[in-house]
């Protein structure tokens, strides 16, 4: 055997490029294999937003008629479909990164096992979040297809709503996972629902931002779901403007911060 140096190296542990890059994928593969044993749950995740779409779009839409947004009159279904798509991206990402991660972190001790291999905390964070995004991608694509077939989509730019939803997923999954590392009981998970519900109802989802008084509008604008909804709505209705880039930037920054915090927290919790 050749003699590698035994002097301490300053750098962080590094693996050869293709392996290092593939590390988080091993966790994605694990989740996919585990998912085969509860595929029904995964499939059922598709239906909730679709049911909402028809209840809101068709049912309530008949009562409401059109909605005025930035000087354009949109049929209510066209107005609400992007919001439901964005919301379901949020809900899916949060579910995977809170409930599922909490179970794996505190009870199944999955990450203790994973960290006894060359996988690092950041691989765990990236792996789990990637899985949430892949699952979300499935739902977004199916939702868009249904909305399109139902005639609720008015612009081919709507195809970009799929990556936009992945971005929403990234922001919520990574922040969700970071927050989950502080949770110690199932009750804490209920607080998450408590935070999501008002966002779901008031992020310009069911009625336009202009409905709110000036002061409240700024509160709405600060929430991540508002940025997601407005981004997806812009794309699905073909209303492209520079403001959409602000939404992209907001969601990207949130995602990056979430991943970094998650990795650090996992290191502190499990490698101490």
């Amino acid at each position, binding site marked *: 055997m050749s003699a590698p140096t035994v002097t301490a190296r300053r750098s962080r542990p590094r*693996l050869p490029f293709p392996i290092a890059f593939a590390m988080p994928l*091993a966790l994605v593969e694990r989740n996919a294999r585990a998912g085969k044993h509860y595929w029904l749950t995964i499939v059922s995740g598709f239906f909730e937003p679709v049911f909402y779409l028809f209840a809101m779009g068709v049912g309530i839409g008949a009562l409401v008629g059109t909605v005025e947004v930035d000087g354009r009159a949109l049929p209510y279904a066209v107005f609400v479909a992007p919001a439901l798509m964005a919301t379901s991206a949020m809900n899916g990402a949060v579910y995977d990164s809170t409930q599922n991660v909490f179970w794996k972190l505190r009870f199944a*001790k999955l990450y*203790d*096992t994973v960290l006894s291999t060359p996988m690092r905390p950041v691989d765990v964070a990236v792996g789990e979040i990637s899985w949430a995004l892949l699952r979300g991608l499935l739902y977004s694509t199916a939702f868009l297809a249904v909305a399109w077939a139902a005639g609720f989509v008015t612009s081919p730019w709507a195809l970009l709503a799929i990556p936009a939803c992945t971005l929403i997923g990234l922001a919520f999954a990574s922040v969700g996972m970071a927050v989950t590392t502080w949770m110690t009981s199932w009750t804490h998970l209920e607080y998450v629902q408590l935070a999501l519900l008002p966002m779901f109802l008031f992020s310009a989802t069911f009625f336009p931002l202009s409905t709110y008084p000036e002061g409240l509008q700024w509160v709405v604008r600060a929430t991540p779901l508002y940025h997601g909804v407005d981004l997806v709505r812009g794309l699905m209705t073909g209303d492209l403007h520079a403001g959409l880039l602000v939404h992209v930037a907001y969601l990207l920054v949130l995602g990056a911060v979430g991943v970094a915090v998650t990795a650090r927290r996992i290191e502190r919790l499990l490698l101490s």
Partner: protein
Amino acid sequence: MNDDAPLIQAVGRRKTYGAFTAVDGIDVEVAPGESFGFLGPNGAGKTSTMRIIACTSPATGGTVRVLGMDPATDASRIKAQLGVVPQEDTLDNDLTVTENLLVYGRYFGLPRATVRERAAELLEFAQLVDKRDELVENLSGGMKRRLTIARGLINTPRILLLDEPTTGLDPQARHILWDRLFRLKREGVTLVLTTHYMDEAEQLCDRLVVMDSGRIVAEGSPRALIREHASREVLELRFDVADHAERADDVAGIGRVEVLADRLLLYVEDGDAALEQVTARGVHPMSSLVRRASLEDVFLRLTGRSLIE
């Protein structure tokens, strides 16, 4: 690194949790192919020690080298060549037996084909071929343990770390497991294990350290430790008294006496001869037993306490 350079080398290794010191300055060296044990009661610091070697818990003092590398800077490289069998079963309950092996192999970045081939061999080794497609929650305790060991071997590690490999198993399951570990030892795998069973330590370890309260109190081969700290045989005497200390004077001078809650131990070269001496003095115990000295006696001698309370 040359072939007989130590695989694990620790000097003055410490581990503190806040103000509490779990490992208090430990020096060990493990050579390739060796079976090395940490023997000690619950709370001695065995798991803390193993986690430092496994690079899942940084030492808070002293220096540690595993495979010639520093866990603080080369954790992933070290872990790539270690097999870890933790104290608690941490199998993936969402997966089948085979999937547990395949997925774990992928955590090491091993190619799918390699992992599949290796998994098939390991199922054979762990005697789990006919359970291959079961979910792990349907396995018995002994089977889970064997699967955990098989999992730890998926990357063909240079060192296999086993934290209390047979605790909680019934005698038959323990013997099957020992048999598997023997086979690994014969194949030249370096084993590092912890245990609080002296029979396990005697069976499996070429060399061991006895730990108590985070310190090493003795080191050597099981036989050398027994020779040094105990005698060849032990005569156990039970009397019908509340406190066995009352009877210690009756047998004084025959051999070293150790007083336990329920019996007296006499450390002697010849147990039967010692028993004759006792009866010749007109002392008649309720029952008596002559046995060979064990690591249990070594531990008692060194710490004044039994391994398992």
